[in-house]
């Protein structure tokens, strides 16, 4: 038995005397190997020789003989198949050891993966999220305000927004591909759509959630319509908008990874998809962990910004 990637030389053994000589066999970890026991013998399988017992136990085709650390089976052709026991270990291709993942992290953060460094992959995914979210907010917030302030806008856009909101952005990928391809434009459109409805609903809620007494108070303090908008409605809606932004950023992050799984030249999703095709499980695991950390980091960052910028949230 030897580990993966280790070169072994077969130990010299006494071949013994008689018609069946002793054999020696090296088996790689997690693998099995056939023992052609008659290769060095005078009596061969062609000549009618057969193995009838292993370790003193009778052996027939279909039933293994347990020989301690390994199982031995008889093949249809009469050779022996040697299967070492794996215990509870798992092959690295399913779950690599933590130190392998760690080493791989060091490797691809310096020498990169598929033409881009790790930081570039992650950075590019983040960049797409920021652009998509920014555009979504740029359109979504005014749309939400308009819906909150004007019945006409609400009448027209409410059904659209309410319908689009529960549609998972991933379900839009095929349509976006048809419209714009899956290049940067397609991805940006997808993220824009992912953020748009969330931001529109959040800002509409922020506007229509203003206490009427606040608006009345401002009016009787002499504020004009525009001043009420500027000093009451907008600040009052900020906490809701921040909550929306936090949700939207999270959704965008998930969406960008999924979109990159479909096709991309760089990005976190592309990295794990390509690694998966080459069975580089350590990179896949590494990618998943990093994606999780970044998603969590985005959330923490938004919470922090919320505490700093809208400290009055939830204390009206």
């Amino acid at each position, binding site marked *: 038995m030897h580990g993966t990637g280790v070169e072994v030389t077969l130990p010299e053994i006494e071949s013994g005397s008689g018609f069946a000589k002793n054999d020696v066999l090296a088996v790689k970890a997690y693998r099995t190997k056939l023992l052609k026991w008659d290769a060095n013998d005078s009596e061969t399988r062609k000549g009618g020789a057969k193995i009838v017992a292993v370790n003193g136990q009778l052996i027939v085709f279909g039933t293994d003989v347990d020989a301690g650390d390994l199982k031995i089976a008889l093949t249809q052709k009469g050779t022996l198949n040697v299967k070492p026991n794996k215990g509870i270990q798992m092959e690295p291709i399913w779950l690599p050891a933590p130190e392998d993942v760690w080493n791989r992290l060091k490797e691809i953060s310096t020498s990169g993966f598929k033409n881009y460094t790790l930081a570039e992959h992650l950075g590019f995914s983040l960049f797409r999220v920021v652009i998509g979210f920014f555009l979504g907010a740029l359109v979504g917030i005014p749309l939400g305000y308009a819906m909150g302030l004007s019945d006409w806008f609400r009448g027209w856009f409410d059904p659209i927004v309410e319908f689009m909101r529960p549609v998972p952005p991933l379900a839009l990928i095929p349509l976006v591909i048809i419209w714009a391809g899956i290049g940067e434009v397609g991805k940006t459109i997808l993220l824009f759509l992912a953020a748009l409805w969330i931001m529109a609903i959040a800002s509409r809620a922020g506007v229509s959630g203003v206490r009427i007494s606040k608006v009345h108070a401002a009016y*009787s303090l*002499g504020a004009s319509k525009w001043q009420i908008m500027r000093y009451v409605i907008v600040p009052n809606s900020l906490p809701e908008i921040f909550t929306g932004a936090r949700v939207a950023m999270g959704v965008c992050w998930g969406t960008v990874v999924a979109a990159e799984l479909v096709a991309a030249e760089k990005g976190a999703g592309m990295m794990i998809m390509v690694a998966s095709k080459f069975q580089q499980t350590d990179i896949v695991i590494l990618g998943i962990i990093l994606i999780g950390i970044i998603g969590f980091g985005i959330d923490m960052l938004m919470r922090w910004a919320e505490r700093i910028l809208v400290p009055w949230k939830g204390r009206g």
Partner: protein
Amino acid sequence: MSGLSIQNISMSFDLPNGGSVQALKDVTLNLKAGELLSVLGPSGCGKTTLLNIVAGFLVPTKGEILLHGNKVTGPSAERGMVFQQGALFEWMNVRENVGFGPRMKGVSTARAREKVDHLLDVVGLQDFKEKAIYELSGGMQQRVALARCLANDPDVILMDEPLGALDALTREKMQSLVLNLWKETGKTIVLITHSVEEALLLGERLLVMAPRPGRIHKEYRLPFADLGVDADLREIKKHDDYGDKREEILEMIWNMEEEIMGRTEVAG
């Protein structure tokens, strides 16, 4: 003609089911400048509706409001309002809240500052000028609301249960504050309350309203507000006259409530 004139106001609300509620019917009332009026009445008799009409938030179905002879057509800074709670701006600190009115008129923050700080001294919040609204207690918040209203120098101050959410002790202190401010500033004040005691203490004139439709049931002229300025309100409450009036009004409102209940029972 100076003062506030409520002329023949009627108000009915359309209901979604096609019917309508008559919240006020033929309410007429004249207040001289500087008068302090408290309004009492069972729940749903149209007190808030009346105040909202005076403030200009609602347009009455019939009648009109005149202030110094000019017809009221909408909300304006000459009629300030103090709400029960939740009408302060949490995104501004105490000083910015109080300075809101002057700022809306284009007065620079620096110029308004002296007045704002003086008002905060008057309401006893000199040590809380930079604090956020949510860091204040309910009583302090109401003092901010009062100062914010005064910073605009309105002719009329309208208050809808301004002390309703406060504990008994804070409430008593605030009642003294309102009385003193009234005497010092000479503002016309209309104060809605659910507490008969408060109405007696804070009303030169006391209006009892009756429901369905909302209308003026009875009016009193009372000496307690004048007596209460610079005096211990608890002493005022020991007046024989005060106790008699309180019993009389409690009985009156009690009977109205009974009647409403009885009617709903018959209707049900």
